[in-house]
Every structure is written in C-alpha cells, then in structure tokens.
C-alpha cells in the first residue's frame, strides 16, 4: 500500500487513511493530511511543471506558500478549474484531480522547451527590444503570439458556482502567524482576558515546529506543544483561532484582511459551505509573527526537479513521512541544511555529501553530521546540477576554482540562509532596516500599532523568539486596553524552551558556480525565469536602482512576489554595481501576500446583489403591460410599451403621435425630488439657482437652472412653491444625490446663517405625467378640491388637493410641449392612482409612453436634457437658456464663473437644431460636425450631435447639436463625416414642433 518514498515510522499522518488522486491523468495514492506536493513526492514524482519563459522542467522548491515552481491546475468540474495552485499548499482530498500547466503535448516532452535552447533571444528586457520592429508586426503578429504563449494555467470558462463569505471582526490583539512565536504571543495576550485572534495560513499550527525535530517546549516536542497550546487557546471564550487563514493585506489603522480557505481541502464541499471567507479585522494591536523563508543557492541548473530547500525536505520527512530521494546531496552556506541531512540520514536515506561554501564552520550540527558518517566538504561549491527531468548529479569544485568532481544524487537540498518575512510589516508602511552584520532586512521604523516577533524580526533561536513573543503579546494586550483596564494580568506561565536548534547566517547572491560573465542558467527567480546573468545584464544596460532592475528583468514580479528571489537579486545587483545593499534599495512589498481569488474579495456582491435595483411604485403595472425597461442609474425605467407585432421603432412612433393627438401617461417617479423648507427657503433658492425666486407666487412653478461655481450647468428641473416657506424642487433622475449633496454643502458650510431644511423626497412621491390635449379631461374626474381650469390653474402652477381620495401635489407643467400635468401622490398609492388615470385615459384613446418617446417629444420642443445636451462645459447662454438667469441678482452659485473671459468669448459652442438634408437620415448621437467636407483628415471639428431621433410627428429626423458659434450659423449647411460618407445638415432653431408654444394651452 505504501507509496515508494513514504517512510514508515516517520511523519505525523495516519498511514491508514489513504486518499487516491490523479495528476496528469495518472492515478496515485496519498494519505489524508498530505498536500498534493507531499503525496506526489511520496510516489517519487518530482517533475510537475514547466517554467514560464524557457519551459524548463520544474519540481518542488519548497513545502509552503513561497513555492514558485510547482503550480498546477486543480479541476473539480467545468466551472471549477483553478489555475496556478501551489501544489505545496493544496491539501489532498479523495479524488483530487490535478494537471500540469504550460506544456504541450506532455510534461515530459514539451515543444515550448525550444525557448530554453533559443534563450539568448529571451534574455532580460527582450520584450522591449525584440518586438519593436517592424511596427505593424506588434499588433498583427507579436502581440497575438505572445498572448497565446503567455500565462500558465487555463481560466475556467463558466461562471464561478461557489459562494464566498465575509466577516468583520474586532479584537484587542491580532496575531499573524501561528508558529512558536505567534502561539506564545497569543497565549500571553489571551491570558489577560482581551479578545485575541490568531491566524495561520497552514492547516495545522506550528510553523517551523513542523520540521524542527530538535525543539522541545514545556516538556513536549515542539510540534506537540504547539497543538496543546492551540487546544488551550481554542477553549478560551476570548480567543478566535483561524487555520487555513492567510493575512494577505495590512491596511491603515491596523485593518488587516485575512482569507480563510473554508472548503478547498474537502472532497465534496456542500453548497452550505462557502469556498472562502474574507475576514476584515480591526485590531487595537497587531503582533506579526510571520517567520522566515529559506533561500536557495544560486548555481547552474539549480532549477532541476529534485533540487529543493533543505527545510522543505525536512518538512516532507518530519511532517509527511516522505523522503525526497534515496541518495541526497546537500549544498549550503548555513547550518540549517545540516539538520535536514541528519534527519534524512537517521531515516535511512543516504546523504551523498554535504557541500558547504563556508571555510571552517563549527557547531553541534556539524559535529553530529560528522558523527553520523556524512561526508562534509568545506570551502567548496556545487557549480552545476546534472540531469534534466530530474537531477542526477552535482558537480563540486573548490570555491576558488580547481578540480571538479561529479557526485551522483537524486535530490539536492540547499540553504543559503533565511530571509525574515517582513512583507506584512512592510505593507503596514513600516520601514525596514538593513542589518549589515546579519545581512538581512529587519523591521526598523514602525508606522502602526504593531510589533514583530521571532524570526520575522530577525530574532535567532527558539528560546529567544518565544521569550520575545510572550512579552510582546502581554504588552500588546495591556497597551490595547490602556490605563482604564481592570488590571487583569496573565496567570499563565511563559512557555519554557527546553531544547532548540540554532541557525547561523548564510549568504546572499550568486554562489561561485554562477560567477560573473558566465552564460549558464543559475536561477534567482524561478517563477519568472530570471537568472543571475539577467540581473548583471540589467545593471550593465544602465538599470542602477533595484526598482529598474526589477522591472527590466521581472525579478520578483511573479505571483510569488519574489519570496525566495528578492534578496539574491538585490545582492547580485549591488555586487555588480559595487555598492552596499541598502544603497541599491529593497522594493516595497504590496498586498496580497499570496494570490487571493476575486471571489473572496467580491463576496456576495455579484449578480443581482452587485448593486441595488430601484423600481418605481408603478413598475409592476408597466411590467404587466409588457413594457421593455432600460437601466437609468440604479433605476429600471419603462423604455417603451410595444403592442403585439410592434418593434421599438413602431411603438415609439405610435406613442409620440398619440401623446400629441390625444394624450399619454408617463411614469416620472424617478425624477429627483427635494423639499426646501424654512423661513429662508426662498433666499436659499436664490443662491442655489440662477433664477429669481423671492417673487415667485405661492402655487406657481418655475424652470430652474443650477450651476456649479464655475458657471457651467449642473442640473435643472421644475420647482413649485407650495407655501412662502416651502419649495418642491425636482432634479434630473441621475442628478438627485449629487444635487442634494451640493445643496447640503452650501447650506452647511457657506450659508449656515440661513434657516432652511432639506429633505430628499424622491421615494415619497410617485409621479404620473399626464400629457396631451386631453390631459385635463383624463385627470379632472378623479380630482377633488382643485379647480383645473386654465384661469384657475395656468401652465406652470401647482396645487394641493386630493386625487382618488389620496393627497396629491398636482403640477401643471410640460416636458412635451403639450398641455400637461404631473400628478404626485404618496408612493404607496402610485400604482392605484396610475390604474385609475389609465382607465380614464383609455376612454379617450390615450397611451402609456416610455422614456424613449419622452426623449423624442422633448427634443421636438428643444427641451434639453442635462448630461446629454450638456457635458459640464455648457453655460446657460450656450444652451440658449439665458432667459433663466436672473439679470438683477447680485449673487448665486456660478455668478462669478459666468463672467470668466472664456465663458463670455465669441465662438463658444452653442446648442442648435440640426436637420439632415435627407429627412430620412437619422444622425448618430456623438457624431462630429465639420464646416468644410473637402478638407484633409484630420478635419477641424466644430461641434457634435448631442440628441438625434426619428420624429414621426415631424415626418423626418430631428437633432440637437453643440456647434461653435451655432446661433450665427442659422440655415448654414454643415457636414457630419461618417464611415460611409458625408451627411449634409442644415443649422436650425431648436424647436421643431409648435414654435410659438400654443399647444401648452391647446
């Protein structure tokens, strides 16, 4: 049953609980608790992918989140094909199906690997050089080919069927990382009684205790202690423990985003489980305990499958019970690889040799390795790895040159030292400091209320890390509560480290085998295929800042964000430049720490829940009538009401004609409505609108224009005065919120002396526009207490009374040029009143009409729509609305802007009517207008079409446009150049129907 490389007695998994899975259509057996990586390694599979650029065969570098090579596609079904999953973090489940990526036709024989042979063409910056000529080839040849060749996995082509949860959480102390330091900090904080959240990206807590066989805490092995401590923390009411939860973003004021993988490790997650859960945590104090990441050695062919980090091999052995080879070589500049060699040797794996770049290191692990009979070579380098689909040998040479010796191996473990994980600290805007002695960047200046502990803080040794973390956890809890705390102090005991392992320093940059001038491939960044030579080349080509080197070579720019490569790249650049490392600079770490799915960020806000949908009270009636709706902002508005057999064109023509002949009903409820109330309401209106309001009589209406301070039209609408101190203001449908904000801004900050209240009443009132010659006859039978005669209620007046027994604000106003009314009723009665009006309307043959007919009817009268016929650079004068600007007024918003030199200059674009010479041709809105059709391209554009429709009432097309000096061009012929030729247009006035306005009373 046992897979070939599973070592009985090693690891922590229960060998009885097997799980079968497939990789590239071949079946294997693993054990529950395995990652895909450990399960494949147990079966002797190292080759799992092809690299991005050169298509080189790749295996596993690591056993964790930093993995740059082992990216696979996990397939659950057609819609669940997740690309670029790190096999080192994907937990195994029964039936897991994984495929390799970036290879064709197969992983072992990949045509794209020709790139490796042709690699001189693809050196650093090749994109910028190679694809420059000829220019036209970029669009037609290079870009399509590159796009086809680029990318690793395949995206699913169906919508994501999973759902994603989201939670907000608050706590006094958030601990990021559940290794020895994180657990110690959480224990100390939790014992004071404050709310603590502890998270870790792994399925099990323990961090490096998963592989450190030499650690003992409180009388237990390190890993066992971690599990007991976690059990203790989980049992506390004030502690939340999150596993499989990666802290990926550290934002302002201790706002930290975590993504918890809820069900990606399960065989068949039910629909009741979210796939992932986004935690947005606000913490008073944050303890960062993110550990350190081991670096690889930079030497020729260091990317061959089987060459991996020493700590990874140790994790596979000590946690998963898997040997990564049978005859293993070790290449190191650091003690920690010795521990890996010792563990493997004790488990029965042959250690071919340890090659140590250092001259005369000493210490207990070196002594122990020697005692075990392992061959140790000091002052030597591995200058090359042999083999292709799997490493087969390592070539060793004295580091200053000399005779080579090739040693057969089936795996190479390497360690160049450990890089503190300062990613989250850096994201918190903290500044790292370079420790010249230990050659590493560690947290320097803090920007937020957080503290780094343990390996990520550059603290060496388990005992020192635990001590530091425990103290920091207790202090964080105390500081979070402040002086007012109940004074509760921890009653637990500090964990006692009985035994630990020690690491000495390592090296940065290229090892001797990848020395200057060589053409060999010694990889710095595995995921982006960046070699030591590429970094040197970038420097030679003039990139002197690490930010430039990074972009030119793409070092550290893959999805692993250079977790293993950044420090090596920096060191090689610094060496080539002859500058100290801090002067070359470290690039800034940004969120996310590891890739995050869009799903977890979007959460439930997709589909119908992406944005609220607003429907009017009359919407159900329109839907029953078969109206076609259009989206206007968040509103659904009835666009037109087709009868059987009618297309949009026919329906709109019929609606337009019927309104002018008889009458029509239109749902105008979406219009923004604001009530302006108070003793100073009129004064306020005077300041916010261009028109005069003080003298407007109660019961009368006025068309108002609102400007911005710069003099341009911001909004418009009809305003009715209900009482000396009460105005019913209407705004455009889309403009309502910004008009309200604009009014509030002036009222609160510029005119706070005015005694006025503003209330948004858009949703309180449903509005039925009844327009057309029969409009009064349609409404009158239903109205009580309002005299609707022309004498008592002329055009532009407003009355309050009752309709169908419910209160109404009845406006006589028109957006069609016909006699018209707008019936405002409380929204709850909107549909009933509409139905009553509709019944009356039918007696006369009236129609319901939608927004399209509304647009045509208003354009026939030259009534503008703000935002369509204006664009934020149009003044009242430009729009032909000078009459609406109070000439005697000394102040209103925009009064000064209107007199700016450019706004009163000649030749401004003015709104005019446009008639095509061929009445059947309907212009395209947005089309440009030119004066001389014979001028060479690019032509001088003098304006554009803003509104254009077929007008059945006019029997021809009509249009409005903004044209330079337009009002001085009446009856001039201008041209609209279109792809299939010039369209001749004549400049006209803006009114196409009833120029004298007689029908308003008709």
């Amino acid at each position, binding site marked *: 049953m046992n897979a070939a490389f599973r070592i009985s007695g090693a690891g922590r998994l229960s060998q009885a609980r097997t799980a079968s899975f497939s990789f590239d259509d071949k079946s294997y057996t693993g054990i529950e608790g395995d990652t895909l990586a450990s399960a494949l390694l147990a079966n002797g599979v190292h080759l799992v992918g092809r690299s991005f650029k050169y298509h080189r065969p790749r295996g596993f570098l690591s056993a964790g989140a930093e993995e740059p090579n082992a990216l696979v596609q996990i397939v659950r079904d057609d819609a669940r094909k997740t690309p670029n999953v790190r096999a080192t973090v994907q937990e195994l489940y029964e039936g897991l199906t994984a495929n390799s990526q970036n290879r064709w036709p197969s992983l072992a024989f990949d045509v794209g690997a020709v790139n490796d042979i042709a690699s001189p063409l693809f050196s650093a910056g090749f994109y910028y050089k190679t694809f420059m000529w000829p220019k036209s080839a970029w669009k037609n040849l290079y870009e399509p080919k590159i796009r086809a060749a680029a990318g690793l996995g395949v995206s699913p082509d169906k919508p994501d069927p999973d759902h994603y949860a989201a939670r907000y959480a608050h706590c006094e102390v958030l601990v990021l990382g559940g290794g020895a330091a994180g657990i110690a900090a959480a224990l100390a904080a939790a014992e004071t009684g404050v709310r603590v959240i502890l998270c870790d990206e792994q399925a099990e807590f323990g961090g490096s205790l998963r592989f450190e066989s030499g650690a003992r805490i409180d009388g237990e092995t390190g890993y066992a202690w971690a599990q007991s401590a976690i059990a203790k923390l989980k049992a506390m009411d004030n502690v939340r423990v999150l596993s499989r939860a990666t802290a990926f973003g550290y934002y*302002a004021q201790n706002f930290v985003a975590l993504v918890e993988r809820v069900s990606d490790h399960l065989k068949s997650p039910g629909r009741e489980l979210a796939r992932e859960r986004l935690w947005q945590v*606000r913490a008073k104090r944050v303890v960062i305990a993110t550990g350190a990441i081991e670096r690889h050695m930079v030497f020729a062919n260091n990317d061959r499958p089987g060459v991996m980090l020493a700590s990874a091999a140790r994790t596979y052995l000590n946690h998963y019970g898997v040997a990564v080879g049978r005859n293993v070589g070790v290449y190191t500049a650091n003690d920690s690889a010795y521990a890996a060699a010792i563990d493997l040797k004790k488990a029965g794996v042959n250690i071919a040799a340890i090659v140590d770049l250092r001259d005369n290191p000493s210490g207990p692990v070196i002594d122990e390795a020697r005692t075990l009979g392992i061959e140790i070579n000091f002052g030597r380098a591995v200058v090359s790895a042999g083999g292709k689909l799997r490493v087969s040998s390592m070539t060793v040479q004295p580091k200053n040159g000399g005779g080579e010796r090739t040693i057969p191996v089936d795996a190479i473990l390497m360690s160049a030292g450990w890089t503190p994980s300062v990613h989250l600290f850096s994201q918190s805007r903290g500044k790292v400091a370079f420790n010249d002695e230990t050659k590493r960047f560690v947290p320097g200046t803090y920007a937020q209320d957080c503290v780094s502990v343990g390996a990520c803080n550059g603290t060496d040794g388990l005992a020192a890390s635990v001590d530091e973390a425990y103290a920091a956890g207790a202090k964080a809890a105390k500081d979070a509560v402040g002086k007012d705390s109940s004074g509760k102090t921890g009653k637990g005991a500090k964990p006692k480290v009985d035994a630990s392992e020690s690491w000495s320093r390592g090296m940065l940059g290229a090892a001797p085998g990848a020395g200057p001038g060589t053409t060999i491939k010694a990889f710095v960044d595995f995921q982006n295929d960046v070699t030591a030579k590429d970094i040197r080349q970038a420097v030679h080509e003039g990139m002197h800042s690490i930010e430039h080197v990074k972009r030119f070579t793409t070092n550290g720019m893959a999805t692993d964000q250079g977790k293993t490569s950044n420090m090596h790249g920096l060191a090689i650049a610094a060496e080539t430049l002859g500058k100290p490392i801090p002067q070359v600079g470290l690039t800034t770490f940004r969120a996310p720490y590891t890739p995050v799915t869009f799903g977890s960020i979007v959460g439930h806000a997709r589909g119908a829940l992406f944005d609220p949908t607003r429907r009017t009270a009359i919407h159900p009636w329109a839907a029953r009538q078969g109206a076609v709706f259009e989206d206007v902002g968040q509103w659904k508005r009835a666009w037109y009401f087709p009868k059987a057999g009618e297309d949009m064109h026919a329906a709109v023509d019929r609606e337009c004609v019927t309104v002018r002949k008889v009458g029509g009903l239109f749902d105008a409820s979406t219009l923004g409505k604001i009530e302006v109330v108070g003793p100073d309401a009129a004064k306020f209106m005077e300041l916010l609108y261009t028109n005069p309001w003080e003298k407007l009589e109660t019961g009368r209406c006025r068309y108002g224009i609102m400007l911005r301070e710069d003099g341009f039209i911001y909004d418009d609408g009809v305003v009715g005065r209900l009482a000396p101190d009460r105005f019913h203001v209407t705004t455009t449908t889309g403009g309502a919120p910004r008009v309200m904000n604009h009014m509030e*801004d002036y009222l*609160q900050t*510029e005119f*706070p002396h005015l005694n006025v209240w503003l209330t948004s009443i858009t949703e309180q009132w449903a509005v039925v526009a009844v327009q057309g010659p029969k409009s009064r006859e349609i409404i009158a039978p239903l109205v009580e207490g309002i005299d609707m005669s022309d004498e008592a209620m002329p055009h532009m007046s407003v009355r309050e009374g009752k309709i169908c027994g419910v209160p109404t604000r009845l406006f006589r106003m028109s957006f069609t040029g016909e006699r018209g009314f707008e019936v405002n009723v409380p929204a709850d009665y909107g549909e009933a009143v509409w139905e009553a009006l509709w019944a009356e309307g039918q007696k006369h043959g009236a129609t319901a009409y939608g927004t399209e007919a509304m647009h045509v009817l208003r354009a026939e009268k030259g009534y503008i729509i703000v935002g369509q016929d204006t664009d934020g650079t149009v003044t009242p004068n430009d729009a032909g609305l000078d009459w609406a600007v109070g000439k005697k007024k000394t102040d209103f918003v925009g009064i*000064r*802007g209107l007199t*700016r030199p450019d706004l009163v200059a000649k030749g401004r674009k003015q709104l005019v009517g446009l008639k095509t010479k061929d009445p059947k041709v309907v212009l395209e809105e947005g089309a440009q207008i030119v004066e001389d059709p014979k001028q060479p391209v690019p032509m001088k554009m003098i304006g554009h079409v803003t509104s254009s429709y077929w007008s059945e009432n006019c029997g021809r097309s009509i249009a409005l446009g903004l044209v330079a000096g337009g009002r001085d061009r009446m009856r001039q012929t201008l041209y609209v150049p279109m792809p299939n030729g010039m369209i001749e247009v004549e400049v006209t006035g803006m009114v196409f129907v009833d120029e004298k306005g007689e029908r308003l009373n008709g």
Partner: protein
Amino acid sequence: MLLIRCPYCEEERPELEFRNAGEAHIARSANIDAESDDDFEKFFFIRANPKGVIYERWRHIHGCARFFNAVRDTVTDKFVMTYKAGEPKPAKLPGASK
C-alpha cells in the same frame, strides 16, 4: 480602511461612511461677483497639495450627514484631528512634531 472621528457623532467610524469634500478653509467671498479673475482663480481652482499636514473637508454622508473639517498627514494618511465646520483652523495640532 481609515477610521475617522466624526466631531458631531463623537465617534470613530470606518471610512466607508464618509466622503472627502476637498480642501478646507477656502471661504466663498460674500461679494463674489466683484472678485477679480485672479482672486476667483485662487478661490475656485488653486488647491494646496502638501506633503504632510493638509486641512480638508469630509462629510459623514452615511451617518449624520454633516460636513466637518479634518487635519490629516498626506504621508502617513493619519488623521491628526477633526473639528466642526465653521470652527477656525486649529492654531496648535495635538502631538505635532513639525
């Protein structure tokens, strides 16, 4: 996400509830119509863009809906203090080091 203290609600609330409303302490002239082109340009178009302390307006739009003033450091994004609209520019900033 920033936490912002609304001086009217007297509570720290998440940034989502607020909307920035541009630079503070730019008063509209009571006699704006008589302003010179230069003065109007300064009032309407010219804004400070400091590296460091900035005085700006915010609105607690999804809360009490009030406009108020804030002092913020553009380098760290940290709010130094907030105060009610109409109150003068603070002469001394709490904990100011520069």
